[in-house]
C-alpha cells in the first residue's frame, strides 16, 4: 500500500511526468521520502554522492566554498528540480554543498539502485537519461548566462 502511495506521489513530480506506469513501478523500489530542516545539508562537496533528489517542496542552495569569500551560492533549486547528478556519474562525489535554505521535502533516489536499473533496462534507462539531458541542457543555458555576469559592467 505504501509503495502504491509513493508511486502515485512520484508520478506528480515534473521530472517524471509522462513516465510510463511500468517504469514508475520499476523505479519506486529505489525511492524513499526525505525531509531536511532549514540549514540542513543534503550534500557536502567531496563526499560520496549516494543519492539523486527530486525536490517536492522547499528550496536548496548550491554552494561552493571560495577561499577569501567564504560560502558562495551559485544557484537555488526549488520544487520540481532535480539535484545530485553526481550520484549517476563516476567518480560519484558531490561537487558542491547543498543546503536547505527552507525546509525541504524530496524524493531521495538511491544512486546505486538507480544506476543498476538504468543499465539493466535500456528502455527505462533511455527515458531517465532523456529527462536528465533536458535538465542538464536548461541548467547549462542558465550557467552560460550567469557566467556572463551581465550586471557587472552595465553602463548608463
Amino acid at each position, binding site marked *: 500500500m505504501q509503495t502504491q502511495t509513493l508511486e502515485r506521489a512520484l508520478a506528480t513530480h515534473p521530472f517524471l511526468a509522462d513516465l510510463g506506469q511500468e517504469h514508475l513501478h520499476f523505479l519506486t523500489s529505489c525511492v524513499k521520502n526525505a525531509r531536511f530542516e532549514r540549514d540542513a545539508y543534503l550534500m557536502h562537496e567531496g563526499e560520496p554522492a549516494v543519492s539523486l533528489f527530486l525536490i517536492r517542496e522547499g528550496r536548496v*542552495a548550491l554552494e561552493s566554498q571560495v577561499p577569501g569569500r567564504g560560502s558562495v*551560492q*551559485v*544557484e537555488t533549486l526549488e520544487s520540481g528540480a532535480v539535484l545530485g547528478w553526481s550520484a549517476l556519474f563516476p567518480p560519484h562525489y558531490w561537487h558542491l554543498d547543498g543546503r536547505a*535554505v*527552507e525546509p525541504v521535502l524530496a524524493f531521495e533516489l538511491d544512486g546505486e539502485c538507480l544506476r543498476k536499473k538504468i543499465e539493466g533496462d535500456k528502455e527505462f534507462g533511455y527515458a531517465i537519461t532523456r529527462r536528465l539531458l533536458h535538465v542538464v541542457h536548461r541548467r547549462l543555458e*542558465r550557467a552560460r548566462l550567469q557566467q556572463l555576469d551581465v*550586471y557587472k559592467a*552595465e553602463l*548608463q
Partner: protein
Amino acid sequence: MTVQAAPDPMLPEFLPVDRLVRETHDTFTLSFDTRGRGGFAFTPGQFNMLYAFGVGEVPISISGDPARSGELVHTIRAVGAVTRALERAKKGTSVGVRGPFGTSWPVEQYSGRDIVLIAGGIGLAPLKPVIHQVLKRRREFGRLAVVYGTRTPGDILFKKQLEQWATRRDVELAISVDRGDPGWRGHTGVVTTLLGRVSFDASNAVACLCGPEVMMRFAARELEKLGLPNERIFLSLERNMKCALAHCGRCQLGGTLICRDGAVYRRDRVLRLMATKEL
C-alpha cells in the same frame, strides 16, 4: 523659486537637488522638487539628459511615479565621471535637466491584459514608473508579474518598495540574484529561471523588459518559448547618447536613433538589429 522652461531643447534647465537617497553601494536616487516650475510631466520609459555642471551630461531614465508630477526622480548607478559627480550632489546642488525624451512603455494601450515586467540590475528603475502606473489603475489590468534579477543581495534596489509590493495580493513579485551569500534565503540563479515562478497568460500578456541587452535577449527567448509573440514584447535599448534630439547620430542602431525612436522598442522591430554583431 520659479524656473522658466528652457525654450531651446539643447539648453538644460537647472534644478536644485531636493534629496539624494543611497540605494546600494553604487546606486543612488536623486529627487528634484518641481512644484515651483509647475511639475514635470513624463510618461513611463522616458529619460532625461542630466548635466553635472562642468563634468558632462548623461541620459538617465526617470524612475518616479508619473502621477506625482511635483517630484522628478532618477535612479543612477555611479559608473563614470558624470554619474560619480551626480553622486556627490547635496541638497540644493544645481543639476542641468533636459527632457523628457524618448518613447514610452505602451502599457496604457493594453488594459485588460496581464502585464509581465522583467528587470535586470538598474533596469528596475525605468520600469518602476510602469508599476506605479499599473497599481494606480489596478482594476484595468489583469495579473501583474514583476520579475527582477540582480547580481547579489546587496545590489537589490528599492528594497522597502519591493517589500511593500510583495505584501500585495495583486502583485506577483519574484526576485533572484546571480550570486547569493550565506545569509540570502531567496532565489539564486539567472532571472530567466523566475519566469516559471510567476503566473500569466501568455496568450494575452504583454511583457516589458529592461536591463543588460544580453539578459533581455535570453529573457525574450524564454517568453517566446512560453508563447508570447514578439509583438507583445517591449524592451529598452541603450547606446551612447549625446544630443538626445536625433541630430548627432551617436545613438544610431541600424536605421533607428534610440533617442528618437526608443529607448522602448517593440521586439519584432529590433530583433534583427539586436542579433547583428558590432552594432
